[in-house]
């Protein structure tokens, strides 16, 4: 008889516990977005007297990661029009950019103006810059130019 009472109490207790359970929902509604993270700057080195190139020996490509949370975004580069910092007397310079991508977007090296559709996720861009002096040589001193990475 004691065994039966114990079973009844146990069942009642279990039923009471089930009745107290409730789900607590967590919801999110995310918009599509694009985030650019500049991971490292590039390094230009001399490649002859009139050329500075990040792909020459000793140079470094710039690195950027583009994060997209939706489809339909595109990436491209804009080459600088001039050095933002250069020794006095530096004349006209022609800039050329290239980039390649790994990760969510896989692309072999293409000219910077090429518009590349981005995959959803993280796309790792490797960016190179080449500067050619117009009928001149690059003098000693510090040079700095900015490449613009565009996501739209």
């Amino acid at each position: 008889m004691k065994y039966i009472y114990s079973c009844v109490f146990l069942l009642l207790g279990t039923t009471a516990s089930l009745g107290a359970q409730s789900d607590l929902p967590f919801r999110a509604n995310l918009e599509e977005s694009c985030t650019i993270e500049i991971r490292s700057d590039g390094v230009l080195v001399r490649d002859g007297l009139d050329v500075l190139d990040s792909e020459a020996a000793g140079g470094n490509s710039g690195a950027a990661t583009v994060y997209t949370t939706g489809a339909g975004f595109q990436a491209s580069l804009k080459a600088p029009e001039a050095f933002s910092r250069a020794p006095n007397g530096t004349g006209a310079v022609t800039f050329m950019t290239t980039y390649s991508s790994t990760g969510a977007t896989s692309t072999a090296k293409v000219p910077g103006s090429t518009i590349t559709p981005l995959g959803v996720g993280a796309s790792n861009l490797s960016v190179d810059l080449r500067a050619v002096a117009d009928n001149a040589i690059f003098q000693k001193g510090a040079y700095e130019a900015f490449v613009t990475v565009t996501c739209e």
Partner: protein
Amino acid sequence: MHKRTLAALIAVCAATTPASSQSMSPMRGVVRSFTDSFAVRVQPRNPYKHRIGVTIRAYDADFRPIDASISPADFSLGAGASRSVLVVLSFEGARERRVRICTESAPFPGKGVGMRAQICGKFIAYRL
């Protein structure tokens, strides 16, 4: 002029939704306005762990700079921070206008970074 701006603001509030934690949002939008001007509100965000300078610019469909009332146009954002920016543009007599609104950011001078990030949202505005 105030009525026009107010109407444009109402139009943008109805057409776009606010968001957070993105470098810029929204990235797409359709705006309808009863006046010769329309407004877009964007929300740039700094994804870095350090303060950056931010500039907001407006371009046409061919990426040519266009006149716009942007407030604020230039500001700085702390790590992970975001803020709302209002961009008011004119239809310039047209019934429809396609524009890009871009968040352009670069670390402060002295960081030695040779790349800038430009994130552009595309918006279509219709004059009703």
